[in-house]
């Protein structure tokens, strides 16, 4: 049975009105509430999406635990950092949306994109994240030489867009980080054993069917970098847990997948980070950046982190 219902828990009427209008455009039944107690009366066991302000994170956590068919989506006008820990420990709280201020709704295209996909839509590709008419490039990466060339390609792409040097370097680091994960951490042999993760300094050559794919595109206002691998092995805990660990100062924790520094890089370099995992088929990590944001604003910008996947 597919999802066809959206619950909205939002106390701010300004935000509520706008969110309801956007969500109505998904074609789903939208049930709104300003009071957690009232929300509980509406909930049933059918698959649905629960959208709420982060101020009600405790209610969202409780409701997600007691309703296994619900997927959680929370928006925040403050720093997203504390929500990462909540997401790590709350199953199905997979979508954290940053927004401009307390009276601002989340970005309409982002909200629509997420809910449409939750209601059963396929991944619409990078085009959905950019204005029509965007430009970009796509490369397959098999070895470190190609990786480095792609990283420099990203820098050149940023230079063409006249982006500040610091942002260029940030994207260079981000693309390098994403490609390293796709090339060294993702590949496994037929018995599921990691092939290359033991030595990240090794000069490897991926088989054609193992190759990582990088896409980089922009419409002049937003920049998107996406890297995918054909393995689909990125666990949910590595995403939210990794970021949370990274924020705690990069303490080394090998049991749970390293220090989280890699995830931290992705988190810090993205206005919106989207992780899509189809086990055994594909992992795709997409970073969206709003080009006109200066670094000072960007540091304090509430980030969005989304995880599509089963694990």
């Amino acid at each position: 049975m597919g999802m066809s219902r959206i619950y909205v828990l939002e106390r701010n009427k300004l935000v509520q009105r706008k969110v309801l209008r956007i969500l109505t455009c998904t074609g789903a039944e939208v049930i709104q509430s300003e009071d957690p107690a009232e929300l509980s009366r509406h909930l049933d066991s059918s698959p649905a999406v629960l959208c709420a302000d982060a101020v009600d994170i405790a209610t969202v956590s409780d409701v997600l635990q007691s309703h296994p068919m619900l997927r959680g989506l929370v928006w925040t006008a403050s720093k997203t950092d504390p929500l990462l820990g909540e997401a790590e420990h709350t199953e199905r709280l997979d979508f954290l949306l940053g927004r401009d201020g307390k009276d601002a709704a989340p970005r309409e295209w982002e909200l629509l994109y997420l809910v449409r996909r939750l209601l059963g839509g396929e991944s619409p590709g990078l085009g959905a994240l950019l204005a029509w008419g965007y430009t970009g490039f796509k490369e397959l990466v098999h070895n470190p030489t190609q990786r480095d060339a792609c990283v420099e390609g990203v820098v050149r792409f940023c230079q063409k867009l006249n982006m500040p040097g610091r942002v260029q370097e940030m994207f260079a680091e981000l693309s390098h980080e994403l490609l390293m994960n796709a090339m060294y951490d993702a590949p496994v042999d037929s018995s599921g054993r990691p092939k290359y993760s033991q030595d990240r300094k090794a000069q490897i050559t991926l088989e054609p069917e193992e190759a990582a794919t990088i896409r980089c595109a922009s419409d002049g206002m937003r920049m998107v970098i996406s890297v995918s691998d054909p393995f689909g092995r990125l666990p949910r805990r590595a995403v939210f847990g990794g970021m949370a660990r990274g924020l705690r100062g990069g303490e080394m924790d090998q049991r749970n997948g390293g220090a989280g520094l890699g995830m931290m890089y992705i988190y810090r370099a993205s206005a919106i980070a989207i992780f899509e995992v189809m086990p055994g088929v594909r992992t795709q990590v997409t970073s969206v950046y709003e080009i006109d944001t200066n670094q000072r604003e960007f540091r304090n910008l509430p980030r969005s982190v989304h995880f599509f996947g089963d694990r």
Partner: protein
Amino acid sequence: MAPDESPETGPGGKLKVTKIVEGDIMCLRFIGTIDEDFHGKSIAEGVKGTLIVDLAEVKRISSFGIREWVDFIKAVEQNTHSIYFIECSPKIIDQFNMVANFGGRGKILSFYAPYRCDYCDDDRRRLVQVDESQELIKNMSLPDVPCDSCGNPEYFDEDPTSFFTYLASQDAVETDPAVANFLAAKLDYRVSDAARRLRADKVVEEATFIRLAGDIDINFPREKLSEGLEGEVVIDLSAVGRVDDEGAVEWTAFSQLVSRECKVYLRDCQPGFVEKVFTADALAGRVEVLSFFMPFKCPSCGYSGAQRVETLEHYDVLKFATSPEFNCPECGTVGPSIASEEFLATLSNLVPPTASKALIEFAERANDKLLKPAAAAQQAGYVLPVAAAPATGRAVGLATVVAVLVSLAVVGGVGWWIYSRLKTEKDIIYDEGGRIVSKEKKPPWFVSWEKTLSEKKIEFGLADELNVSTEGGKIYVIGYSFAAAEREEAEARAREAALERLVHHLADSMKDRLWRQAVLEQYAQERRRLLRDLAAAVQKKDGLATNRARKVVWDRRIAVTSALQAGSRAFKKPAEEVYFQQLELQQGSSRVTRYRFWVRLAVPVAEAAKLMAQYVEPVKIESQKVSLLDFFPGLAWVYDDVKHGAIVLGVEDGSPWKDSVTPGNLLVTCAEIPIKGPDKFKEVVDERIDFLKTKGGKVECLSKSPRESRQVGYAVAKVEEPRPRVITRPGTPGMTGTGPSNVNTWDDPTQ
């Protein structure tokens, strides 16, 4: 090895690590990307003593690179007693904030703050010295600064709370003097004055041992240091940083003074000292050199450091001004010093030292005695305060005395020389000291000026009081430039400074009270303020403020001289003498050339009087009942966009300007026509009044004062043309025209 790899480059060629070693101190400079190709542990091998890590050019760092980096830091911590990070790029500051233990127990001495000018859409970075910016760091706030290109404010482009997290938590940093000397002497980094002040520690036993640490400059306390010296004296110079020209002169005087009473042996002289001081004069008499250092770079592995030379051991080679061969301490390759020809030439002044074995052993013991407390303190995790003298055994600390003397000298003046050593951002041209490579002989007037500057300890900015003298019916003025990259620019700046000084001298010589009020007092205070600002910025060692203040002073001087040349009918180019210095200095890895100029003008008093006559004789405009003066060039200090005008000297009762202008106001335009002097004012205003009489209106002039700019003037009534008036007489209503019953009469104002 890939073709583009230098010996210091990692396997991927993305990171270059260069090494500079001097005794116990090593500097590693990282350039490029720290990622999986960075082999932290292998680079850490061989690092010991004090490590300085230069991170200015780290562009990227990956998460795996961070792991390698943390391993590198863990490894070097085991073998070093101090780690300092200098010129950390914003990227690196991010890592300090994000990653626990990124810097181990190392201290950040300086970092680059990212700045942005939205108007130019440009990102820049500005170097911040931690010890000088503790308040700003604790308050987590860096001020806006004017953009170098457009002048609009550019802002600190980071979230201060995030950016300063680590820096604000770092304990106050005091740089070990030896490290400060290394930074200043070997890397040409700016370090605080406190860290560079000369200190002297003395051990008196069977002979006297003095250990000097810091810079040798004009403040060198030669008399204090020579007091009470007798017998054999060994002076250790291993911790001496920069030696400038004036320091070299002071040193020569000191050695000549001391060698009258004592036999002096110099040991471990640094290359900078050798270059400046190994002259025949300084080594004359009873001064001998036991050992010194020569610069060395291994042609094979790239190791860079100074090599110690025992004079006696190598004398047969040195006397021919040639370098001994050295073994590279890293790879063993044999090669000569990379010392310059000038350096090698100085070696021919050496004589074979005659020190006894017992004296050399005493010097070793005394040196150990002085160094041990410092080393122990460093092992314990703290640094000896710069001015604190260790008192062990018979070690007598002169440090406090010297520090007081030096600080008095610094506070009291000689700011110009301090300024000449200032350096903050590499891209900005400062007077950075450096080595004089020009062979120009100092002319007597320059020597005398320099001597007086030193003796009177006149502060920079106020030093211009010294720059004027009158002798033999001539006025002499001296102007000097800061170091500039272009020779022509330096010369032009010096000439402008001299001309401006002449202008101000002439103004200040005027006795007329009204003139002084209307002209001199309008700008003199501002002139003094700007020069004081510059002096204060120099003394505070605020590089950015110095640069800004210097630019303002420069701009105003240019404006003054331009106004002089544009406006004065009596201006004749004075005779001049020029002296210049060509300087070579190290900036990062490259050598740069700078020029400093001094221009001395000689103006006959009669010529000066003729020049001033144009400006001091008022023109009385009878019709307006005002007295005006020609625009005086000195006013460009307060009106940098004006080169002409008429200065109001007096306004008589009954003047139409009585209510709108006051003495000192500068009338610049009238009806948008420029007023080039009092005569032009009269001409323009008279024409304007004639015109306004036909229709009425206001005579308006743009009047400026240092504080405001406004339109002033007065109304001119329309003067009616005499016209015929029709008088209709009673009893003849309805009659028109000029018939016999109507009389046309003209208005008669007397009726």
